[in-house]
Protein backbone atom coordinates (compact mmCIF):
# COMPACT_ATOMS: atom_id res chain seq x y z
CA UNK A 1 0.00 0.00 0.00
CA UNK A 2 1.35 3.43 -0.90
CA UNK A 3 2.22 5.85 1.86
CA UNK A 4 -0.19 8.59 2.79
CA UNK A 5 1.11 11.40 5.03
CA UNK A 6 -0.42 11.28 8.50
CA UNK A 7 -1.71 14.83 8.50
CA UNK A 8 -4.02 13.94 5.64
CA UNK A 9 -6.13 12.13 8.20
CA UNK A 10 -6.83 15.23 10.20
CA UNK A 11 -10.45 16.26 10.20
CA UNK A 12 -11.48 18.36 7.27
CA UNK A 13 -11.95 21.79 8.78
CA UNK A 14 -12.40 24.05 5.84
CA UNK A 15 -15.38 22.55 4.25
CA UNK A 16 -16.21 23.68 0.85
CA UNK A 17 -19.85 23.92 1.67
CA UNK A 18 -20.69 25.14 -1.77
CA UNK A 19 -20.28 21.68 -3.18
CA UNK A 20 -23.18 20.46 -1.09
CA UNK A 21 -25.19 23.49 -1.94
CA UNK A 22 -24.51 23.75 -5.63
CA UNK A 23 -27.58 23.24 -7.62
CA UNK A 24 -27.63 22.32 -11.20
CA UNK A 25 -27.17 25.25 -13.54
CA UNK A 26 -30.75 25.46 -14.64
CA UNK A 27 -31.61 24.22 -18.06
CA UNK A 28 -34.92 26.05 -18.35
CA UNK A 29 -37.84 24.75 -20.33
CA UNK A 30 -37.29 27.41 -22.94
CA UNK A 31 -33.53 26.99 -22.98
CA UNK A 32 -33.95 23.29 -23.55
CA UNK A 33 -36.55 23.85 -26.27
CA UNK A 34 -34.35 26.41 -27.99
CA UNK A 35 -31.47 23.95 -27.93
CA UNK A 36 -33.62 21.30 -29.58
CA UNK A 37 -34.96 23.73 -32.13
CA UNK A 38 -31.48 24.84 -33.08
CA UNK A 39 -30.52 21.26 -33.84
CA UNK A 40 -33.41 20.97 -36.28
CA UNK A 41 -31.92 22.34 -39.51
CA UNK A 42 -35.18 22.56 -41.43
CA UNK A 43 -36.87 24.45 -38.61
CA UNK A 44 -34.02 26.93 -38.41
CA UNK A 45 -34.09 27.35 -42.20
CA UNK A 46 -37.82 28.01 -41.91
CA UNK A 47 -37.25 30.54 -39.16
CA UNK A 48 -34.59 32.44 -41.10
CA UNK A 49 -36.83 32.43 -44.19
CA UNK A 50 -39.69 33.88 -42.17
CA UNK A 51 -37.48 36.58 -40.69
CA UNK A 52 -36.25 37.43 -44.19
CA UNK A 53 -39.79 37.62 -45.54
CA UNK A 54 -40.87 39.84 -42.65
CA UNK A 55 -37.92 42.18 -43.15
CA UNK A 56 -38.54 42.33 -46.90
CA UNK A 57 -42.25 42.93 -46.41
CA UNK A 58 -41.58 45.84 -44.07
CA UNK A 59 -38.59 47.51 -45.71
CA UNK A 60 -38.64 46.13 -49.25
CA UNK A 61 -41.36 48.34 -50.77
CA UNK A 62 -39.91 51.44 -49.13
CA UNK A 63 -36.40 50.82 -50.38
CA UNK A 64 -37.53 50.06 -53.90
CA UNK A 65 -37.87 53.01 -56.29
CA UNK A 66 -41.08 51.52 -57.67
CA UNK A 67 -44.47 51.54 -55.98
CA UNK A 68 -46.98 48.71 -56.18
CA UNK A 69 -49.40 50.77 -58.25
CA UNK A 70 -46.93 52.64 -60.53
CA UNK A 71 -47.56 51.65 -64.12
CA UNK A 72 -44.76 51.78 -66.68
CA UNK A 73 -46.77 51.68 -69.88
CA UNK A 74 -43.66 51.18 -71.97
CA UNK A 75 -42.62 48.13 -69.99
CA UNK A 76 -45.58 45.78 -70.03
CA UNK A 77 -45.02 42.06 -69.40
CA UNK A 78 -41.23 42.16 -69.22
CA UNK A 79 -39.32 39.16 -67.93
CA UNK A 80 -36.99 39.36 -64.94
CA UNK A 81 -34.17 41.89 -65.41
CA UNK A 82 -31.77 44.06 -63.40
CA UNK A 83 -34.29 46.90 -63.38
CA UNK A 84 -37.30 44.76 -62.44
CA UNK A 85 -36.15 41.63 -60.58
CA UNK A 86 -39.34 39.66 -61.06
CA UNK A 87 -40.27 41.43 -64.30
CA UNK A 88 -43.42 43.50 -64.82
CA UNK A 89 -47.05 42.56 -65.24
CA UNK A 90 -49.46 43.22 -68.08
CA UNK A 91 -50.03 46.79 -66.92
CA UNK A 92 -46.34 47.50 -66.50
CA UNK A 93 -46.22 47.28 -62.70
CA UNK A 94 -43.10 46.02 -60.97
CA UNK A 95 -43.85 42.45 -59.90
CA UNK A 96 -41.15 42.31 -57.21
CA UNK A 97 -42.70 45.17 -55.29
CA UNK A 98 -46.14 43.75 -55.79
CA UNK A 99 -45.08 40.37 -54.43
CA UNK A 100 -43.49 42.10 -51.45
CA UNK A 101 -46.66 44.06 -50.99
CA UNK A 102 -48.57 40.78 -51.11
CA UNK A 103 -46.31 39.54 -48.36
CA UNK A 104 -47.55 42.40 -46.20
CA UNK A 105 -51.13 41.31 -46.69
CA UNK A 106 -50.30 37.67 -46.07
CA UNK A 107 -48.35 38.49 -42.95
CA UNK A 108 -51.14 40.78 -41.77
CA UNK A 109 -53.55 37.89 -42.18
CA UNK A 110 -51.16 35.63 -40.27
CA UNK A 111 -50.83 38.26 -37.57
CA UNK A 112 -54.58 38.69 -37.20
CA UNK A 113 -55.05 34.94 -37.05
CA UNK A 114 -52.39 34.56 -34.37
CA UNK A 115 -53.67 37.50 -32.34
CA UNK A 116 -57.15 36.02 -32.38
CA UNK A 117 -55.68 32.70 -31.38
CA UNK A 118 -53.82 34.22 -28.50
CA UNK A 119 -56.59 36.41 -27.17
CA UNK A 120 -60.01 35.00 -27.96
CA UNK A 121 -58.94 31.37 -28.30
CA UNK A 122 -56.80 31.21 -25.19
CA UNK A 123 -59.28 33.12 -23.06
CA UNK A 124 -62.32 31.21 -24.25
CA UNK A 125 -60.63 27.84 -23.82
CA UNK A 126 -59.16 28.91 -20.51
CA UNK A 127 -62.45 30.00 -19.07
CA UNK A 128 -64.26 26.91 -20.32
CA UNK A 129 -61.59 24.61 -18.91
CA UNK A 130 -61.38 26.36 -15.56
CA UNK A 131 -65.14 26.65 -15.06
CA UNK A 132 -65.78 23.04 -16.06
CA UNK A 133 -69.14 21.36 -15.71
CA UNK A 134 -72.16 22.91 -17.37
CA UNK A 135 -70.46 26.16 -18.42
CA UNK A 136 -67.72 24.20 -20.12
CA UNK A 137 -70.26 22.02 -21.86
CA UNK A 138 -72.21 24.98 -23.18
CA UNK A 139 -69.13 26.88 -24.34
CA UNK A 140 -67.65 23.91 -26.12
CA UNK A 141 -70.93 23.04 -27.92
CA UNK A 142 -70.85 26.59 -29.27
CA UNK A 143 -67.37 25.95 -30.59
CA UNK A 144 -68.68 22.80 -32.24
CA UNK A 145 -71.43 24.83 -33.88
CA UNK A 146 -69.00 27.36 -35.35
CA UNK A 147 -66.83 24.51 -36.52
CA UNK A 148 -69.64 22.84 -38.41
CA UNK A 149 -70.02 25.70 -40.91
CA UNK A 150 -67.48 25.82 -43.76
CA UNK A 151 -65.19 28.84 -43.92
CA UNK A 152 -66.20 29.76 -47.48
CA UNK A 153 -69.76 30.22 -46.28
CA UNK A 154 -68.60 32.72 -43.69
CA UNK A 155 -66.59 34.62 -46.31
CA UNK A 156 -69.52 34.82 -48.69
CA UNK A 157 -71.74 35.94 -45.84
CA UNK A 158 -69.29 38.69 -44.94
CA UNK A 159 -69.00 39.72 -48.59
CA UNK A 160 -72.72 40.15 -48.76
CA UNK A 161 -72.83 42.04 -45.49
CA UNK A 162 -69.83 44.37 -45.78
CA UNK A 163 -68.62 43.95 -49.30
CA UNK A 164 -65.44 42.31 -50.61
CA UNK A 165 -62.03 43.30 -49.33
CA UNK A 166 -59.49 42.62 -46.66
CA UNK A 167 -62.01 43.51 -43.96
CA UNK A 168 -64.41 40.72 -44.77
CA UNK A 169 -61.56 38.22 -44.93
CA UNK A 170 -60.39 39.32 -41.50
CA UNK A 171 -63.92 39.05 -40.16
CA UNK A 172 -64.37 35.56 -41.55
CA UNK A 173 -61.00 34.45 -40.20
CA UNK A 174 -61.98 36.05 -36.92
CA UNK A 175 -65.01 33.83 -36.64
CA UNK A 176 -63.09 30.65 -37.27
CA UNK A 177 -59.45 30.88 -36.31
CA UNK A 178 -59.73 30.88 -32.54
CA UNK A 179 -61.76 27.67 -32.40
CA UNK A 180 -58.91 25.19 -32.51
CA UNK A 181 -56.95 27.15 -29.95
CA UNK A 182 -59.93 27.20 -27.62
CA UNK A 183 -60.10 23.41 -27.81
CA UNK A 184 -56.37 22.94 -27.29
CA UNK A 185 -56.23 25.30 -24.30
CA UNK A 186 -59.33 23.83 -22.70
CA UNK A 187 -57.95 20.31 -22.93
CA UNK A 188 -54.66 21.44 -21.40
CA UNK A 189 -56.35 23.27 -18.59
CA UNK A 190 -58.60 20.37 -17.74
CA UNK A 191 -55.54 18.26 -16.95
CA UNK A 192 -53.52 21.07 -15.39
CA UNK A 193 -56.19 22.25 -12.98
CA UNK A 194 -56.09 18.96 -11.08
CA UNK A 195 -52.37 19.39 -10.43
CA UNK A 196 -51.14 20.12 -6.98
CA UNK A 197 -49.72 23.56 -7.68
CA UNK A 198 -53.19 24.74 -8.67
CA UNK A 199 -54.59 23.14 -5.51
CA UNK A 200 -51.94 25.02 -3.57
CA UNK A 201 -52.97 28.30 -5.14
CA UNK A 202 -56.60 27.60 -4.26
CA UNK A 203 -55.61 26.72 -0.71
CA UNK A 204 -53.92 30.11 -0.53
CA UNK A 205 -57.17 31.76 -1.50
CA UNK A 206 -56.08 32.88 -4.97
CA UNK A 207 -58.90 34.23 -7.15
CA UNK A 208 -60.01 32.37 -10.25
CA UNK A 209 -58.49 35.06 -12.49
CA UNK A 210 -55.18 34.76 -10.72
CA UNK A 211 -55.21 30.99 -11.07
CA UNK A 212 -55.98 31.31 -14.77
CA UNK A 213 -53.43 33.97 -15.67
CA UNK A 214 -50.60 33.24 -13.24
CA UNK A 215 -50.76 29.49 -13.03
CA UNK A 216 -52.68 27.81 -15.81
CA UNK A 217 -51.98 29.78 -18.97
CA UNK A 218 -48.21 30.11 -18.46
CA UNK A 219 -48.10 26.33 -18.19
CA UNK A 220 -49.93 25.94 -21.51
CA UNK A 221 -47.46 28.10 -23.44
CA UNK A 222 -45.90 25.15 -25.25
CA UNK A 223 -49.09 23.86 -26.89
CA UNK A 224 -50.27 27.44 -27.46
CA UNK A 225 -47.16 28.31 -29.44
CA UNK A 226 -47.39 25.11 -31.43
CA UNK A 227 -51.02 25.78 -32.31
CA UNK A 228 -50.30 29.36 -33.34
CA UNK A 229 -47.39 28.35 -35.51
CA UNK A 230 -49.52 25.71 -37.21
CA UNK A 231 -52.45 28.08 -37.70
CA UNK A 232 -50.55 30.97 -39.29
CA UNK A 233 -49.69 29.17 -42.56
CA UNK A 234 -53.24 27.85 -42.70
CA UNK A 235 -54.63 31.38 -42.49
CA UNK A 236 -52.17 32.68 -45.07
CA UNK A 237 -53.06 29.89 -47.42
CA UNK A 238 -56.78 30.45 -46.89
CA UNK A 239 -56.44 34.11 -47.76
CA UNK A 240 -54.42 33.32 -50.89
CA UNK A 241 -56.95 30.72 -51.90
CA UNK A 242 -59.94 32.99 -51.36
CA UNK A 243 -58.28 35.87 -53.20
CA UNK A 244 -57.44 33.54 -56.04
CA UNK A 245 -61.11 32.67 -56.32
CA UNK A 246 -61.91 36.37 -56.33
CA UNK A 247 -63.48 36.35 -52.89
CA UNK A 248 -60.72 38.31 -51.21
CA UNK A 249 -58.69 41.42 -51.65
CA UNK A 250 -59.68 43.66 -54.56
CA UNK A 251 -57.45 45.30 -57.17
CA UNK A 252 -55.23 47.33 -57.09
CA UNK A 253 -54.18 45.84 -53.78
CA UNK A 254 -51.90 42.95 -54.47
CA UNK A 255 -52.32 39.86 -52.40
CA UNK A 256 -50.48 36.75 -53.57
CA UNK A 257 -53.75 35.09 -54.41
CA UNK A 258 -54.82 38.05 -56.53
CA UNK A 259 -51.48 38.14 -58.32
CA UNK A 260 -51.72 34.45 -59.12
CA UNK A 261 -55.29 34.80 -60.25
CA UNK A 262 -54.41 37.80 -62.48
CA UNK A 263 -51.58 35.86 -64.05
CA UNK A 264 -53.78 32.99 -65.07
CA UNK A 265 -55.28 34.33 -68.32
CA UNK A 266 -51.84 35.18 -69.69
CA UNK A 267 -50.08 32.11 -68.43
CA UNK A 268 -48.80 31.11 -71.89
CA UNK A 269 -47.22 34.46 -72.66
CA UNK A 270 -46.05 35.52 -69.22
CA UNK A 271 -45.52 32.42 -67.08
CA UNK A 272 -43.30 34.36 -64.65
CA UNK A 273 -46.35 36.32 -63.48
CA UNK A 274 -47.73 33.13 -61.97
CA UNK A 275 -44.42 31.64 -60.97
CA UNK A 276 -43.26 34.35 -58.54
CA UNK A 277 -46.42 34.75 -56.44
CA UNK A 278 -46.88 30.98 -56.38
CA UNK A 279 -43.31 30.59 -55.24
CA UNK A 280 -43.83 33.21 -52.53
CA UNK A 281 -46.91 31.37 -51.25
CA UNK A 282 -45.23 27.98 -51.17
CA UNK A 283 -42.04 29.32 -49.66
CA UNK A 284 -43.84 31.11 -46.84
CA UNK A 285 -46.13 28.22 -46.03
CA UNK A 286 -43.30 25.71 -46.17
CA UNK A 287 -41.19 27.92 -43.92
CA UNK A 288 -44.00 28.26 -41.38
CA UNK A 289 -44.73 24.55 -41.50
CA UNK A 290 -41.09 23.60 -40.98
CA UNK A 291 -40.85 25.97 -38.07
CA UNK A 292 -44.13 24.69 -36.65
CA UNK A 293 -42.98 21.08 -36.91
CA UNK A 294 -39.71 22.02 -35.29
CA UNK A 295 -41.49 23.82 -32.47
CA UNK A 296 -43.76 20.87 -31.92
CA UNK A 297 -40.79 18.54 -31.58
CA UNK A 298 -38.95 21.02 -29.39
CA UNK A 299 -41.80 21.86 -27.05
CA UNK A 300 -43.82 18.68 -26.88
CA UNK A 301 -43.44 17.44 -23.34
CA UNK A 302 -43.92 13.85 -24.36
CA UNK A 303 -40.58 13.98 -26.18
CA UNK A 304 -38.80 15.49 -23.21
CA UNK A 305 -36.94 13.21 -20.84
Amino acid at each position, binding site marked *: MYEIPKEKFNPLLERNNDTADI*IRPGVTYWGDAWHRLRQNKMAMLGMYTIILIILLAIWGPILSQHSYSDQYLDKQGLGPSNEHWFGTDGLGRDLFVRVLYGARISLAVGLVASLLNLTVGVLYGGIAGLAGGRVDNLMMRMVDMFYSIPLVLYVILMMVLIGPGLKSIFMALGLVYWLEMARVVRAQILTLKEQEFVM*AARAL*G*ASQARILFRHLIPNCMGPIIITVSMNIPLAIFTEAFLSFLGLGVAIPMASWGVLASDALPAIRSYPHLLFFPAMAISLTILAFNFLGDGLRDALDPRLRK
Partner: protein
Amino acid sequence: MGKDDILLKVDGLVKHFELSQGFWGRKAVVQAVDDVSFHICQGETLGLVGESGCGKTTVGRTVIKLYEPTAGAIVFDGRDITGLKEKEMRSLRKRMQIIFQDPYASLNARMTVGDIISEPLIIHSLARGPKLREQAVKLLQKVGLSPNYINRYPHEFSSGQRQRIGIARALAVNPDFIVCDEPISALDVSIQAQVVNLLEDLQQEMGLTYLFITHDLSMVKHISKRIGVMYLGKLVELAESSELYQRPLHPYTRALLSAIPVPDPDAAAQKQRVILKGDLPSPINPPAGCRFRTRCQFARDICSRSNPEMIQVGLKHMVACHIVINRLTDRFFNK
Protein backbone atom coordinates in the same frame (compact mmCIF):
# COMPACT_ATOMS: atom_id res chain seq x y z
CA MET B 1 -57.36 18.58 28.13
CA GLY B 2 -60.33 20.90 27.90
CA LYS B 3 -62.73 21.13 25.05
CA ASP B 4 -61.47 24.62 24.30
CA ASP B 5 -58.20 23.24 23.01
CA ILE B 6 -59.84 21.57 20.04
CA LEU B 7 -58.76 23.35 16.87
CA LEU B 8 -60.49 21.22 14.28
CA LYS B 9 -63.48 18.98 14.75
CA VAL B 10 -64.83 16.83 11.98
CA ASP B 11 -68.17 15.18 12.45
CA GLY B 12 -69.63 12.55 10.14
CA LEU B 13 -67.72 13.84 7.13
CA VAL B 14 -68.90 12.42 3.81
CA LYS B 15 -67.42 13.18 0.41
CA HIS B 16 -68.77 11.53 -2.71
CA PHE B 17 -67.49 12.23 -6.19
CA GLU B 18 -69.78 11.88 -9.15
CA LEU B 19 -68.27 10.25 -12.16
CA SER B 20 -70.18 10.59 -15.36
CA GLN B 21 -69.99 7.51 -17.46
CA GLY B 22 -70.99 7.27 -21.07
CA PHE B 23 -72.48 9.91 -23.31
CA TRP B 24 -75.75 10.50 -21.55
CA GLY B 25 -74.00 10.98 -18.25
CA ARG B 26 -75.12 7.98 -16.25
CA LYS B 27 -73.70 8.93 -12.91
CA ALA B 28 -71.54 6.64 -10.80
CA VAL B 29 -70.74 7.72 -7.28
CA VAL B 30 -67.31 7.21 -5.76
CA GLN B 31 -67.74 7.04 -2.02
CA ALA B 32 -64.31 8.45 -1.27
CA VAL B 33 -64.99 9.36 2.35
CA ASP B 34 -67.91 8.00 4.34
CA ASP B 35 -68.88 9.11 7.83
CA VAL B 36 -65.49 10.07 9.24
CA SER B 37 -65.29 11.85 12.62
CA PHE B 38 -62.24 13.03 14.53
CA HIS B 39 -60.82 16.09 16.23
CA ILE B 40 -57.38 17.65 16.44
CA CYS B 41 -56.22 19.65 19.45
CA GLN B 42 -54.20 22.83 19.29
CA GLY B 43 -50.50 22.07 18.72
CA GLU B 44 -51.12 18.38 18.19
CA THR B 45 -50.26 16.14 15.25
CA LEU B 46 -52.89 13.69 14.13
CA GLY B 47 -51.62 11.03 11.75
CA LEU B 48 -53.91 9.58 9.13
CA VAL B 49 -52.71 6.36 7.54
CA GLY B 50 -54.10 4.05 4.95
CA GLU B 51 -53.35 2.70 1.51
CA SER B 52 -53.98 4.43 -1.77
CA GLY B 53 -57.69 4.83 -2.42
CA CYS B 54 -58.65 4.83 1.25
CA GLY B 55 -59.74 8.46 1.11
CA LYS B 56 -57.09 9.97 3.37
CA THR B 57 -56.09 12.62 0.84
CA THR B 58 -59.74 13.46 0.24
CA VAL B 59 -60.23 13.95 3.98
CA GLY B 60 -57.23 16.29 4.05
CA ARG B 61 -58.50 18.35 1.17
CA THR B 62 -62.08 18.44 2.38
CA VAL B 63 -61.32 19.65 5.90
CA ILE B 64 -59.70 22.78 4.46
CA LYS B 65 -62.56 23.11 1.97
CA LEU B 66 -60.61 22.46 -1.21
CA TYR B 67 -63.43 20.03 -1.86
CA GLU B 68 -66.99 20.75 -0.85
CA PRO B 69 -68.12 18.14 1.70
CA THR B 70 -71.17 16.12 0.67
CA ALA B 71 -72.40 15.86 4.26
CA GLY B 72 -71.15 16.26 7.80
CA ALA B 73 -69.71 19.20 9.69
CA ILE B 74 -66.28 20.77 9.85
CA VAL B 75 -65.71 23.05 12.83
CA PHE B 76 -62.52 25.08 12.80
CA ASP B 77 -61.61 26.95 15.97
CA GLY B 78 -65.21 26.91 17.15
CA ARG B 79 -66.63 28.12 13.85
CA ASP B 80 -68.64 25.91 11.53
CA ILE B 81 -67.01 26.30 8.12
CA THR B 82 -68.94 23.54 6.34
CA GLY B 83 -71.25 25.80 4.39
CA LEU B 84 -68.95 28.79 3.88
CA LYS B 85 -68.64 30.15 0.35
CA GLU B 86 -65.20 30.55 -1.21
CA LYS B 87 -65.33 34.31 -0.60
CA GLU B 88 -66.04 33.79 3.09
CA MET B 89 -63.31 31.18 3.30
CA ARG B 90 -60.74 33.63 1.97
CA SER B 91 -59.75 35.11 5.33
CA LEU B 92 -59.71 31.66 6.93
CA ARG B 93 -57.31 30.41 4.27
CA LYS B 94 -54.64 32.38 6.08
CA ARG B 95 -55.07 30.08 9.05
CA MET B 96 -55.16 26.69 7.30
CA GLN B 97 -52.61 25.56 4.77
CA ILE B 98 -51.58 22.42 2.94
CA ILE B 99 -48.30 20.80 1.91
CA PHE B 100 -48.43 18.40 -0.99
CA GLN B 101 -46.88 15.08 -1.84
CA ASP B 102 -45.33 15.62 -5.22
CA PRO B 103 -42.48 18.13 -5.04
CA TYR B 104 -42.59 18.38 -8.84
CA ALA B 105 -46.28 18.97 -9.42
CA SER B 106 -46.89 21.18 -6.41
CA LEU B 107 -44.74 24.08 -7.59
CA ASN B 108 -45.58 26.12 -10.66
CA ALA B 109 -42.68 25.47 -13.02
CA ARG B 110 -43.05 28.87 -14.66
CA MET B 111 -42.57 30.92 -11.49
CA THR B 112 -39.36 31.68 -9.61
CA VAL B 113 -38.97 30.55 -6.04
CA GLY B 114 -39.31 34.14 -4.88
CA ASP B 115 -42.58 34.55 -6.75
CA ILE B 116 -43.92 31.25 -5.44
CA ILE B 117 -43.39 32.04 -1.79
CA SER B 118 -44.42 35.66 -2.02
CA GLU B 119 -47.66 34.83 -3.82
CA PRO B 120 -49.58 34.16 -0.58
CA LEU B 121 -48.33 37.48 0.79
CA ILE B 122 -49.66 39.28 -2.28
CA ILE B 123 -52.99 37.47 -2.23
CA HIS B 124 -53.64 38.38 1.37
CA SER B 125 -51.98 41.83 1.09
CA LEU B 126 -49.57 40.95 3.87
CA ALA B 127 -46.57 42.69 2.36
CA ARG B 128 -45.66 44.75 -0.65
CA GLY B 129 -42.68 46.34 -2.35
CA PRO B 130 -39.28 45.77 -0.73
CA LYS B 131 -41.00 44.23 2.31
CA LEU B 132 -42.24 41.43 0.09
CA ARG B 133 -38.75 40.34 -0.83
CA GLU B 134 -37.55 40.69 2.73
CA GLN B 135 -40.32 38.36 3.87
CA ALA B 136 -39.52 35.86 1.13
CA VAL B 137 -35.86 35.82 2.17
CA LYS B 138 -36.87 35.23 5.78
CA LEU B 139 -39.13 32.34 4.77
CA LEU B 140 -36.37 30.73 2.72
CA GLN B 141 -34.01 30.92 5.67
CA LYS B 142 -36.65 29.52 7.94
CA VAL B 143 -36.91 26.33 5.89
CA GLY B 144 -33.14 26.05 5.55
CA LEU B 145 -32.61 27.29 2.01
CA SER B 146 -30.09 29.90 0.96
CA PRO B 147 -31.68 33.24 -0.01
CA ASN B 148 -29.37 33.26 -3.05
CA TYR B 149 -31.79 30.89 -4.71
CA ILE B 150 -34.63 33.36 -4.74
CA ASN B 151 -34.55 33.92 -8.48
CA ARG B 152 -34.15 30.28 -9.43
CA TYR B 153 -36.86 28.09 -10.93
CA PRO B 154 -38.21 25.00 -9.13
CA HIS B 155 -36.70 22.49 -11.56
CA GLU B 156 -33.22 23.58 -10.54
CA PHE B 157 -33.72 22.12 -7.08
CA SER B 158 -33.57 18.59 -5.76
CA SER B 159 -36.83 17.07 -4.53
CA GLY B 160 -36.01 17.67 -0.87
CA GLN B 161 -35.28 21.34 -1.53
CA ARG B 162 -38.51 21.65 -3.51
CA GLN B 163 -40.45 20.23 -0.60
CA ARG B 164 -38.87 22.94 1.56
CA ILE B 165 -40.09 25.56 -0.90
CA GLY B 166 -43.60 24.11 -0.62
CA ILE B 167 -43.35 24.35 3.17
CA ALA B 168 -42.15 27.97 2.95
CA ARG B 169 -45.16 28.82 0.78
CA ALA B 170 -47.53 27.30 3.34
CA LEU B 171 -45.80 29.14 6.18
CA ALA B 172 -45.95 32.52 4.42
CA VAL B 173 -49.42 33.32 5.76
CA ASN B 174 -48.45 32.27 9.27
CA PRO B 175 -51.10 29.55 9.60
CA ASP B 176 -52.31 27.68 12.68
CA PHE B 177 -53.16 24.44 10.98
CA ILE B 178 -51.36 22.61 8.18
CA VAL B 179 -52.53 19.54 6.31
CA CYS B 180 -49.39 17.59 5.39
CA ASP B 181 -50.54 15.43 2.49
CA GLU B 182 -47.86 12.75 2.17
CA PRO B 183 -45.08 15.35 2.34
CA ILE B 184 -42.28 12.80 2.48
CA SER B 185 -43.49 9.92 0.33
CA ALA B 186 -41.68 11.11 -2.77
CA LEU B 187 -38.38 11.78 -1.01
CA ASP B 188 -35.25 9.73 -0.48
CA VAL B 189 -34.76 8.14 2.93
CA SER B 190 -31.98 10.46 4.04
CA ILE B 191 -33.94 13.51 2.93
CA GLN B 192 -37.21 12.33 4.55
CA ALA B 193 -35.64 12.67 7.98
CA GLN B 194 -34.50 16.21 7.14
CA VAL B 195 -38.03 17.25 6.20
CA VAL B 196 -39.66 15.54 9.18
CA ASN B 197 -37.22 17.26 11.53
CA LEU B 198 -37.94 20.58 9.86
CA LEU B 199 -41.68 20.07 10.30
CA GLU B 200 -41.19 19.18 13.96
CA ASP B 201 -38.99 22.23 14.57
CA LEU B 202 -41.53 24.50 12.93
CA GLN B 203 -44.30 23.00 15.01
CA GLN B 204 -42.37 23.77 18.19
CA GLU B 205 -41.45 27.24 17.05
CA MET B 206 -44.76 28.40 15.66
CA GLY B 207 -47.19 26.24 17.62
CA LEU B 208 -48.51 24.58 14.49
CA THR B 209 -51.16 21.89 14.40
CA TYR B 210 -50.73 19.16 11.80
CA LEU B 211 -52.94 16.66 10.09
CA PHE B 212 -50.23 14.34 8.83
CA ILE B 213 -51.40 12.09 6.00
CA THR B 214 -49.16 9.25 4.91
CA HIS B 215 -48.92 5.60 4.04
CA ASP B 216 -45.56 5.27 5.79
CA LEU B 217 -46.42 3.68 9.12
CA SER B 218 -43.03 4.00 10.73
CA MET B 219 -42.81 7.71 9.97
CA VAL B 220 -46.36 8.45 11.11
CA LYS B 221 -45.68 6.84 14.43
CA HIS B 222 -42.64 9.02 14.85
CA ILE B 223 -44.36 12.30 14.12
CA SER B 224 -47.92 11.93 15.43
CA LYS B 225 -49.39 11.86 18.86
CA ARG B 226 -52.54 10.07 17.76
CA ILE B 227 -53.13 8.05 14.61
CA GLY B 228 -56.26 7.28 12.65
CA VAL B 229 -56.31 4.30 10.30
CA MET B 230 -58.51 4.52 7.22
CA TYR B 231 -59.78 1.78 4.97
CA LEU B 232 -61.91 2.36 1.88
CA GLY B 233 -63.35 5.70 3.01
CA LYS B 234 -63.94 4.74 6.63
CA LEU B 235 -61.98 5.40 9.77
CA VAL B 236 -61.47 1.94 11.29
CA GLU B 237 -59.27 2.66 14.30
CA LEU B 238 -58.12 5.74 16.16
CA ALA B 239 -55.67 5.67 19.06
CA GLU B 240 -52.59 7.20 20.59
CA SER B 241 -49.62 6.16 18.47
CA SER B 242 -47.80 3.99 20.99
CA GLU B 243 -51.08 2.30 21.93
CA LEU B 244 -51.87 1.66 18.28
CA TYR B 245 -48.51 0.03 17.69
CA GLN B 246 -48.52 -2.05 20.86
CA ARG B 247 -52.17 -3.01 20.92
CA PRO B 248 -53.62 -2.80 17.43
CA LEU B 249 -57.19 -4.11 17.54
CA HIS B 250 -58.69 -3.85 14.08
CA PRO B 251 -57.63 -6.74 11.83
CA TYR B 252 -56.73 -4.24 9.12
CA THR B 253 -54.44 -2.27 11.41
CA ARG B 254 -52.74 -5.50 12.39
CA ALA B 255 -52.17 -6.51 8.78
CA LEU B 256 -50.90 -3.03 7.97
CA LEU B 257 -48.43 -3.05 10.84
CA SER B 258 -47.17 -6.52 10.08
CA ALA B 259 -46.64 -5.57 6.46
CA ILE B 260 -43.97 -2.95 7.19
CA PRO B 261 -40.65 -4.34 6.02
CA VAL B 262 -38.15 -4.07 8.89
CA PRO B 263 -34.58 -3.11 8.09
CA ASP B 264 -33.27 -5.91 10.27
CA PRO B 265 -32.53 -9.24 8.56
CA ASP B 266 -32.83 -11.45 11.65
CA ALA B 267 -36.08 -9.92 12.80
CA ALA B 268 -37.40 -10.13 9.25
CA ALA B 269 -36.65 -13.83 9.10
CA GLN B 270 -38.61 -14.49 12.29
CA LYS B 271 -41.52 -12.20 11.65
CA GLN B 272 -44.98 -13.66 11.31
CA ARG B 273 -46.87 -11.78 8.66
CA VAL B 274 -50.59 -11.31 8.31
CA ILE B 275 -50.92 -11.40 4.56
CA LEU B 276 -54.18 -9.92 3.32
CA LYS B 277 -55.98 -11.79 0.61
CA GLY B 278 -56.91 -10.04 -2.59
CA ASP B 279 -57.15 -6.39 -3.44
CA LEU B 280 -58.93 -3.27 -2.33
CA PRO B 281 -62.59 -3.32 -3.50
CA SER B 282 -63.78 -0.44 -5.65
CA PRO B 283 -65.04 2.62 -3.75
CA ILE B 284 -67.83 2.90 -6.35
CA ASN B 285 -69.44 -0.26 -5.01
CA PRO B 286 -68.02 -0.84 -1.56
CA PRO B 287 -69.04 -4.05 0.24
CA ALA B 288 -72.15 -3.73 2.37
CA GLY B 289 -71.70 -3.88 6.11
CA CYS B 290 -68.09 -3.73 7.19
CA ARG B 291 -66.03 -2.62 4.22
CA PHE B 292 -63.05 -4.69 5.24
CA ARG B 293 -64.93 -7.99 5.45
CA THR B 294 -63.94 -9.18 1.94
CA ARG B 295 -60.31 -9.37 2.99
CA CYS B 296 -60.75 -10.11 6.66
CA GLN B 297 -59.82 -13.55 7.97
CA PHE B 298 -62.23 -13.21 10.91
CA ALA B 299 -65.29 -12.09 8.94
CA ARG B 300 -68.64 -13.48 10.17
CA ASP B 301 -72.24 -13.07 9.07
CA ILE B 302 -72.77 -9.98 11.13
CA CYS B 303 -69.98 -8.19 9.25
CA SER B 304 -71.92 -8.27 5.99
CA ARG B 305 -75.19 -7.38 7.69
CA SER B 306 -74.36 -4.28 9.65
CA ASN B 307 -71.91 -1.48 9.47
CA PRO B 308 -69.66 -1.39 12.56
CA GLU B 309 -69.66 1.89 14.48
CA MET B 310 -66.58 3.49 16.02
CA ILE B 311 -66.69 2.41 19.66
CA GLN B 312 -64.53 3.64 22.47
CA VAL B 313 -62.49 0.73 23.86
CA GLY B 314 -59.81 2.52 25.82
CA LEU B 315 -59.02 5.92 27.18
CA LYS B 316 -58.22 7.29 23.75
CA HIS B 317 -58.74 4.20 21.67
CA MET B 318 -61.62 3.74 19.25
CA VAL B 319 -62.22 0.89 16.87
CA ALA B 320 -64.89 -0.05 14.35
CA CYS B 321 -65.07 -3.83 14.19
CA HIS B 322 -67.85 -6.24 15.26
CA ILE B 323 -65.47 -9.07 16.02
CA VAL B 324 -63.16 -7.03 18.24
CA ILE B 325 -66.05 -5.45 20.10
CA ASN B 326 -67.69 -8.85 20.65
CA ARG B 327 -64.49 -10.36 21.93
CA LEU B 328 -63.88 -7.44 24.26
CA THR B 329 -67.39 -7.49 25.72
CA ASP B 330 -67.24 -11.30 26.11
CA ARG B 331 -63.99 -10.99 27.97
CA PHE B 332 -65.45 -8.26 30.13
CA PHE B 333 -68.51 -10.25 31.18
CA ASN B 334 -66.90 -13.68 31.49
CA LYS B 335 -64.33 -12.32 33.83
